[in-house]
């Protein structure tokens, strides 16, 4: 009692201050008690003060839900401020007290009829925020009236309310016809109403990508453009973003829209400016390049982009990420604006890094001197990340602008002289790239580089230095000593360095065979016998065999001329760039990823494309895909002397001329390694290696990607040793169904294709048997997929190297990736395939098990699982039963794990095991599962929860298939 009295006094004291902080009293029980009394006071003023105290507590996160009935009692009032405060409270707590919230409904309905439009709007607005089903039922009638209210302020508020209601109960909104009313509001006479209707429709459309809500036609576009001039800045953003989804019929319409959008570039709100830039960048694609207006438009785009850079740093950052896209697509817009990207020392680091990136993109012969001077300045800054990037940028300049290469190299040498450790390491890495771009030009600097050998402690720099020593071994007198010094700690090095060292010493040996025999023996045995790394062992064996069989051939292979590296290594792939240009100003543009890649499941499966851009896309952007593959790969053994290599390996490997571009380094390497085994391994076994047992063990682990040709006949007695190609390599691997006939011979002029899908070591594979049942030889096979639900696409060409003779079959494995174009298919897992050969093109469709899309990192953390499970609405839950399954829960869990269905937790209740499982699809959709297994009962129950409910059925099929096989 005493304490309670003290409490009261204390509260009074606080109450005497004039500010809102008086509302902060302690959280002890006395406070709630006292507030309750005040709320029920007869005096209006006291009531209001009490509600204010309640709100203040709520704002700082205290729980005052216990006062619900008392606060609601204050709702019936003429005092607008009190009403607003009560509404604020209701929005926060109605969800936790749904039964009490019903008490408020009558007042809401009455307020919706109030003569004051402010009160009508307030009521409809608040009702929409109360996310309680029982209340939403009562909301429909008032909302319908408000959508047709005479006062535009009420109409515009009601428009937003439709979006709120849709979020709570989409079905209700559709049944009540609110969507149509909302669409009508696009033609409203008041621009604010139009803007809000557009905003509401866009939000609804976003959660239902296929609903086709915003059907844009020239009439609606015209209305939007009219409203654009008159509505608020925020409304302009909604309208511009909506306009960007429209595809004009022809270039004249395109131009007229652009003309009406350009004034927005002078808006003070940067979001308006960027949305306008998006519309213009997109519609510009449709304008003929020789049009005067096209040039005018290009000129108009530069100043607003530059202005964005004088805004607050957060705005600058988003602007810079977008400018990065724009300069890749249309470098001409900002080519004269290099200086605005110069870094100031007090820019935040995230702005500095972005500016640097754009500087490189804009670097050209005209401005390279300026850029280099700047970069050199940056290389002496404080921030390590920034300095590293600046040094790298100098290297990129050298590679991009040939005329500047010499200055870049000398700048880099100056920087090496500073002896700052990380600067030296970065410089060496980029100098390696410069050597690859301009061979035999700057080797005079090697001596300087060698002086810094000891200070290198980062793998990338060590690897780069070793590469340089190996590549130019003949010009470095003590190359053998240098490399030998690295060899001492061979096993402590990272793989990158080990591989590089192996190659470098082999190169050295081929160049100076007399003095280095011992060294090469040493490195080969280190790589093949003492290492657990399959890549390293494989490469070691190749070299060993090459050297022991035919040193001349080895020389031709290892010292073959390397392809030059291309100019820019980090350009965004053109189709992705096109898509991102359509998303300027969005999160996608900040992350430089398509929305489907990172926005959670269920939505965003639509890929946007620039209109009419196919031809311009090809003509303007350099081919970057091949460049990316070559750029940073280690000096590759590219079989330029294919037939010779073929002879060497006793295999009829067709000369590379027919396979088109040389295969990427790593896969070429592996194919070589496996083929080698087929050939004369016996001689190796009998010879140099002396039957070392390491080989058997060494090949026990399957290589990452098994090339098609591996299943070709393997010679001699090694069959049993290496029959892992048959499937032993995947003891607990993913389940794959037996092959079925996809394309019967009679439908395809004698070509029969049967196949299945599998996921092996993280690679989705399409395994096919092609059988020639015709009379003539088949050649020139190729394959293509139609767009499909998960963007499956062949990761390489169909590897049928030899002609397929009549009555012959060939097994082909086609690795797939999931970066292809996306289109929702019916059924979801349907895949339409076209196969071509010298005779004709054939089409068939097949269905793939969804389990092969389960990725390896699909194990969700427990906490996240719990939260996600709660988060996904119950409507999305699907329950299935699997009958006749006799596995124990552990065995089932093991089996499922092989197919990347991960068991996160297990609970046993009354003899029933509950397994909680997660899996993730290649497009980032998570599926959560609860599997119940009762000992002795062959019927399992599986409940699946997923944001994209339509996949559940197919996931269930996968469960059944995996568990029963």
């Amino acid at each position: 009692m005493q304490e309670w009295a003290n409490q009261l006094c204390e509260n009074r004291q606080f109450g005497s201050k004039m500010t809102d902080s008086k509302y902060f009293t302690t959280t002890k029980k006395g406070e709630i008690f006292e507030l309750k009394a005040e709320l029920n006071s007869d005096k209006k003023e006291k009531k209001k003060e009490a509600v204010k105290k309640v709100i203040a507590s709520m704002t700082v996160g205290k729980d005052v839900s216990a006062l619900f009935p008392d606060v609601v009692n204050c709702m019936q009032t003429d005092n607008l401020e009190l009403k607003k405060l009560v509404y604020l409270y209701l929005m926060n707590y109605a969800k936790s007290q749904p039964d009490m919230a019903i008490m408020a409904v009558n007042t809401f309905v009455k307020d919706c009829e109030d003569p004051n439009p402010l009160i009508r709007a307030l009521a409809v607005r608040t009702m929409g925020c109360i996310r309680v089903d029982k209340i939403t039922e009562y909301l429909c009638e008032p909302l319908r009236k408000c959508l047709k209210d005479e006062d535009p302020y009420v109409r515009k508020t009601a428009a937003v309310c439709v979006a709120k209601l849709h979020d709570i109960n989409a079905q209700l909104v559709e049944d009540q016809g609110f969507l149509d009313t909302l669409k009508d509001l696009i033609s409203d006479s008041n621009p604010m109403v139009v803007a809000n209707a557009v905003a509401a429709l866009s939000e609804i459309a976003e959660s239902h990508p296929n609903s086709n809500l915003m059907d844009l036609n020239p009439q609606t576009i015209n209305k939007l453009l009219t409203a654009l001039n008159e509505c608020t800045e925020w409304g302009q953003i909604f309208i511009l973003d909506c306009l960007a989804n429209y595809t004009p019929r022809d270039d004249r319409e395109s131009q007229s829209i652009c003309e009406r959008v350009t004034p927005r570039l002078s808006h003070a709100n940067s979001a308006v400016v960027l949305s306008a830039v998006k519309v213009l960048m997109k519609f510009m694609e449709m304008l003929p390049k020789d049009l005067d207006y096209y040039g005018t438009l290009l000129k108009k785009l530069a100043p607003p982009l530059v202005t964005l850079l004088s805004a607050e740093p957060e705005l600058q950052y988003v602007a810079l990420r977008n400018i990065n896209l724009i300069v890749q697509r249309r470098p001409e817009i900002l080519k004269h604006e290099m200086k605005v990207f110069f870094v100031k020392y007090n820019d935040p680091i995230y702005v500095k890094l972005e500016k640097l990136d754009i500087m490189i993109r804009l670097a050209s012969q005209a401005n390279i001197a300026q850029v280099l001077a700047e970069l050199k300045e940056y290389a002496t800054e404080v921030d390590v990340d920034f300095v590293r990037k600046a040094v790298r940028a100098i290297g990129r300049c050298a590679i991009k602008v040939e005329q500047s290469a010499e200055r870049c190299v000398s700048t880099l040498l100056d920087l090496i002289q500073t002896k700052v450790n990380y600067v030296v390491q970065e410089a060496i890495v980029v100098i390696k790239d410069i050597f690859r771009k301009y061979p035999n030009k700057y080797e005079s600097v090697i001596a300087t580089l060698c002086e810094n050998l000891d200070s290198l402690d980062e793998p990338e720099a060590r690897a780069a230095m070793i590469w340089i020593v190996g590549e130019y071994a003949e010009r470095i007198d003590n190359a053998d000593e240098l490399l030998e010094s690295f060899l001492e700690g061979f096993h402590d090095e990272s793989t990158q360095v080990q591989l590089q060292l192996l190659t470098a010493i082999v190169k050295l040996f081929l160049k100076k065979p007399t003095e280095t025999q011992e060294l090469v023996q040493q490195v080969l045995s280190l790589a093949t016998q003492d290492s657990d790394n399959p890549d390293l062992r494989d490469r070691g064996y190749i070299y060993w065999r090459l050297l022991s069989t035919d040193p001349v051939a080895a020389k031709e292979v290892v010292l073959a001329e390397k392809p030059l590296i291309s100019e820019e290594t980090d350009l965004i792939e053109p189709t992705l760039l096109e898509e991102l240009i359509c998303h300027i100003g969005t999160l996608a543009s900040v992350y430089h990823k398509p929305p489907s890649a990172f926005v959670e499941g269920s939505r965003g499966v639509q890929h946007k494309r620039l209109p009419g851009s196919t031809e311009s896309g090809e003509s303007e952007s350099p081919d970057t895909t091949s460049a990316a593959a070559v750029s940073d790969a280690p000096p590759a053994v590219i079989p330029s002397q294919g037939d010779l290599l073929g002879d060497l390996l006793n295999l009829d490997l067709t000369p590379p001329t027919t396979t088109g571009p040389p295969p990427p380094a790593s896969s070429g390497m592996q194919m070589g390694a496996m083929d080698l085994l087929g050939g004369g391994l016996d001689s190796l076994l009998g010879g140099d290696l002396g039957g070392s047992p390491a080989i058997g063990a060494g090949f026990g682990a399957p290589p990452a990607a098994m090339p098609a040709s591996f299943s070709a006949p393997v010679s001699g007695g090694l069959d049993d040793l290496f029959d892992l190609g048959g499937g032993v390599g995947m003891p607990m691997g993913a389940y794959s169904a037996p092959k079925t006939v996809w394309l019967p011979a009679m439908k395809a002029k004698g070509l029969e294709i049967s196949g299945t899908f599998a996921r092996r070591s993280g690679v989705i594979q399409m395994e096919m048997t092609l059988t020639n049942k015709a009379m003539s030889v088949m050649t020139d096979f190729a394959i293509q997929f139609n767009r499909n639900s998960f963007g499956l696409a062949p990761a390489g060409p169909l590897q049928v190297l030899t002609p397929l003779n009549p009555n012959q079959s060939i097994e082909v494995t086609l690795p797939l990736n999931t970066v292809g174009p996306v289109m929702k298919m019916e059924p979801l897992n349907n895949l339409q395939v076209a196969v071509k050969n010298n005779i004709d093109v054939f089409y068939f469709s097949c269905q793939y098990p969804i389990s092969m899309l389960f990725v390896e990192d699909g194990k969700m953390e427990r906490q996240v699982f719990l939260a996600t499970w709660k988060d996904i609405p119950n409507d999305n839950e699907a329950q299935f039963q699997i009958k006749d399954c006799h596995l124990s829960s552990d065995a089932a869990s093991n089996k499922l794990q092989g197919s990347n269905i991960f068991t996160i937790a297990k609970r046993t209740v009354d003899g029933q095991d509950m397994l909680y499982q997660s899996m993730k699809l290649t497009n980032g959709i998570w599926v959560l599962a609860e599997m119940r297994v009762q000992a002795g009962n062959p019927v399992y129950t599986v409940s699946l929860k997923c944001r994209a409910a339509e996949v559940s059925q197919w996931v269930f099929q996968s469960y059944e298939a995996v568990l029963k096989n």
Partner: protein
Amino acid sequence: MIHSLFLINHLGDIFLEKHWKSVISRSVCDYFFEAREKAVDPENVPPVLQTPHHYLISIYRGKLFFLSVIQTEVPPLFVIEFLHRVADTFQDYFGECSESVITDNLVIVYELLEEMLDNGFPLATESNVLKEMIRPPNILRSVVNTLTGGSNVGETLPQGQLSNIPWRRAGVKYANNEAYFDVTEEIDAIVDKSGTTVSAEIQGVIEACVKLSGMPDLTMSFMNPRLLDDVSFHPCVRFRRWESERVLSFIPPDGNFTLMTYHISSQNLVAIPVYVKQSINFFEAGSCGRLDITIGPKQTMGKTVEDLKVTIHMPKAVLNANLTATQGNYTYDCTTKMLVWDIGKLNPQKLPNLRGSLSMQTGVPNPEENPSLNIDLKIQQLAISGLKVSRLDMYGEKYKPFKGVKYVTKAGKFQVRT
């Protein structure tokens, strides 16, 4: 759309949260705190963060983080602009934007936030409109309110909300009608150690304080409008008139507002008002350094340079500075490593000089980086770009207003490298 807002102080306490849709737990901020920790300086926290289920977009203003949580694809600039607008509104209402004023006015803040955003869509962000709906606090009113039971929430729908000029409130009346314009230009420049200008640009802004009765329609014209090719306007400016006649024609909001901002790029010749002769050297042997800086006028168009100040962020190894200034005072803060030389007015006859020695930490290698000099200055009655307002006319109202235009040039991010 914008889902929730958290206000976080520099200690990392969340002192206000507001949710416009369902309630999101504060724990979502943990991802932000992690990034905050990593960034070391609060200025370096990346403005857009991705978490498993949400995106966090934040701004840093007045030592506070405004952190918004969003769940669906929303243009990040839209969010950032809105957050700055929230901060501006607090500034406007309470005179400053700090934790203490916000907690002192929690209820008004909460009412404001509710009024600014509905379901994540901006509702009313114009200060003219907001002030009609929620009156800013002042001591007199709170006394009157407590006596009469009045409220600080407007009872009627603000007129401006739906008209074609949402920015202006109706029924404005003043005894003295006046319109003042401040043309302020800031020079952003990088000058290298030899004194050559690496880049220089001007950020200009015209701020207005318009207190005119009724519905005045103003027209402002310039002597040399050709200077302005990169401009952003307040929504009140009629863009077509600008395009065709190069005059600013507008019905102004009531009170203070930014009429336009403009940018004069480094492709134009930007005058640099002062030159700096400097040498800063560090000696390995004696663990000391020397510093010698002289500043003189360059292109000042005959005006006086005032409030001249040089700020240098010294390398960590500099322990103290022992300098003599021929004019003004210098201070060296050895914790933040900031050397500030406050010069004041620049006298062309007797150039200010600062020289002396720097004591360095022994046993530490020479600093690799060269400190940059940051220059602050002010020149009254001059717009360094040469921009001049030629006339200001008023239509639509009968009375004769007082008019005035003031010019001032300042240094923005003016850096001299060494």
